[in-house]
């Protein structure tokens, strides 16, 4: 495959290793796509084609799975993904205010990525830390009860360094 050459060659090589390792699992598609997204940061059509041909699946099936699940993205994501929780507990405790502050601080709307590719602002329905509502997650770090803009900016700054 042509794509395995060039600057992405290394990434494809890693993906190939992952696929070889998981190939013998029963029904490995979702697990493979998850790893692929880890490697590439997102799932462009070329990557989906690569996965489809390696696993011997129709591309339509791979595409169908990618578009069904919220977790998969077909557009590039920022280095840090900010997920503001919009679950019920957070809704009651003012998740909309967190979103508004985030949008203002980052200068992007929900679902967008900042120009410097540092942050993608998105939302998630409950991360299971409801007693700390309102909650947001950056990468794997959870932040709760952020009630002022100063605190929020301080947190964002940590990731800006």
């Amino acid at each position, binding site marked *: 495959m042509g794509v395995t050459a060039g600057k992405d060659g290394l990434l494809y090589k890693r993906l190939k290793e992952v696929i070889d390792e998981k190939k013998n699992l029963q*029904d490995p*598609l*979702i*697990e493979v796509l998850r790893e692929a997204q880890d490697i590439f940061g997102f799932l462009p059509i070329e990557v989906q084609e690569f996965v489809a041909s390696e696993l011997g699946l129709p591309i339509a099936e791979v595409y169908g799975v990618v578009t069904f699940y919220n977790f998969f993205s077909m557009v590039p994501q920022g280095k840090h993904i900010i997920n503001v929780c919009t679950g019920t*507990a957070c809704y*009651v405790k003012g998740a909309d205010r967190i979103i508004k502050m985030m949008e203002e601080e980052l200068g992007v709307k929900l679902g967008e990525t900042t120009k410097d590719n540092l942050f993608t602002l998105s939302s998630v329905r*409950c991360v299971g830390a409801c007693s700390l509502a309102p909650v947001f997650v950056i990468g*794997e770090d959870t932040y709760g009860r952020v009630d002022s803009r100063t605190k929020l900016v301080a947190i964002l700054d940590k990731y800006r360094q």
Partner: protein
Amino acid sequence: MSINRTDVLLCCGSGCVSAGSLKVKEKMVEQLAKHGLTDEINIIETGCMGPCDYGPVMMVYPEGVFYKKVTPEDVPELVEEHFVKGRPLHRLMIQEGNKVIANKEDIPFYKKQVKVALENCGYINPEKIEEYIAVGGYEALGVALTEKTPQDAIDVIKNSGLRGRGGGGFPTGLKWQFVHDAEGSPKYVVCNGDEGDPGAFMDRSLLEGDPHRVLEGMMLAGYATGASEGFFYIRAEYPLAIRRIRNAIKQAREYGLIGKNIMGTEFCFDAEVRTGAGAFVCGEETALIKSIEGRRGQPIPKPPFPANRGLRENPTLVNNVETLGNIPTIFRKGAEWFAGMGIETSRGTKVFALTGDVKNTGLVEVPMGITLRELIYDVGGGMADGKKFKAVQLGGPSGGCLTEQHLDCSIDYETLKNLGAMVGSGGVIVMADNNCMVNVAKFFLEFSMEESCGKCTPCRVGLKMMHTILDRICQGKGQEGDVEELERLGETIKQTSLCGLGQTAPNPVLSTLRYFRHEYEEHLEKKSCSTCTCLNLMHFEIDKEKCIGCSLCARKCPVSCITGSREEKFTIAQDPCVKCGNCFEVCPVKAVQKLPGMAELTAVNSSFSSLYE
């Protein structure tokens, strides 16, 4: 186990970790070393202890002292006082009035709780199988494998009266029987850890805090039903839970507790983890099975039920995390013991995630049949910040909102269902009187609408239509007959949808229509939202008496609709106002007020707003 003088159980559940418990641990290690106590004091990282609101929390044994809201800055004093001088540090203990509560058992939050599934959560290190075994873990499995036939095992669960904790409340023993009796092999056990209800975190806490218990429950289920392979389906948002279960499986394998010929018997069982990828509908069992098969998680009509034709067309048992978590204890303590708790149709205990405007938010486990009032006021400590109770939401997007008048109703499957709510997975969200119920209904509907898989028309199109109507009501553009249309659509969607998502999605709307109809009517007829939540049905005004003329609001207004001077004070021109709320936030003297009703109306009839005081 350790021979240390003292054990410090430090809660490392998700709540406490976000509140900083790992930093507390670091500081503890450093300070204990400084005092040369490292070998005497054992710090154990446990799963969620429950009172997340007090986080980070810790318990010190053998004394049994409970400390709350411990910060790294507190640690030097804590170590000096408690561990060097042997004096509990009152400042960090829970106080009632001016009395310090020394024992965990006396804390009101714990008094009415009975821990079964959460028995070990907060007591043991979830990453060590030795600790689970030390408190009786895997004993039930050993006894069952060597002394009970699969049918005996099924009968234990049947007699216990345990019902599914994942929402449906289906009798667990009966489901096991179906899978046991079904033809086909291999059979599978699937643990449903998708926990989609936004506002619930008990499955997460159990998986993180006591993973071996869930694994043991799964193996017992496997033995009883004749399954040889298990899958944990855990949502991607719970990375720690995924790691902990993987670790538990690995350790069990090292101990020969999972794999071939377990404990020298004929029984062979293996388990693996599959992760969800962010789709609520995948919590539905047939969709979940599709997702494990690596496909789009779309439900299929039932019957056939998974018990007969599930994963890879073979008989499959799908049980919730908490359901499986109850199993080992039921085997150890007996069906009668379990059935002795709760009421007639709902036996045992249930874990609830208590959140919202309640004082003690957190994870609680109470006997079935206690009242909502006991749950919210005794365990939960009542309303937070002196707010006024308005509603309690149970059952997430499939459930409903109940009111003050229901507070004395018992929490059990039937009662709640008849009232239009449900036990559901166990999310309990308490709402104060600043919540607009029309907006709450819209919130849930929006959730279900977004999460609809789109396979069946009533759910895909019907929910959208309901949402359009709710949206226009909140915009102040509601039309005559909207309420009736919502009811008609809701009933139709319930009856005609393919899976449980659509069949229950109208519930939040229908239940608020039932108990808060006046709020809908107020939005429709008076064009007013008394909680000032719906922006088109409220407006901002500046109280001239309070205004000090500092002009901060005018400077922060994005559309320059605030004018005035130090002498004249400031006023908001209602027409151009976009209701961003900046003025409300920045006013140093709280002169900017939110008032219900549309602005034009107040101009015509200035006494209108006083109707809602």
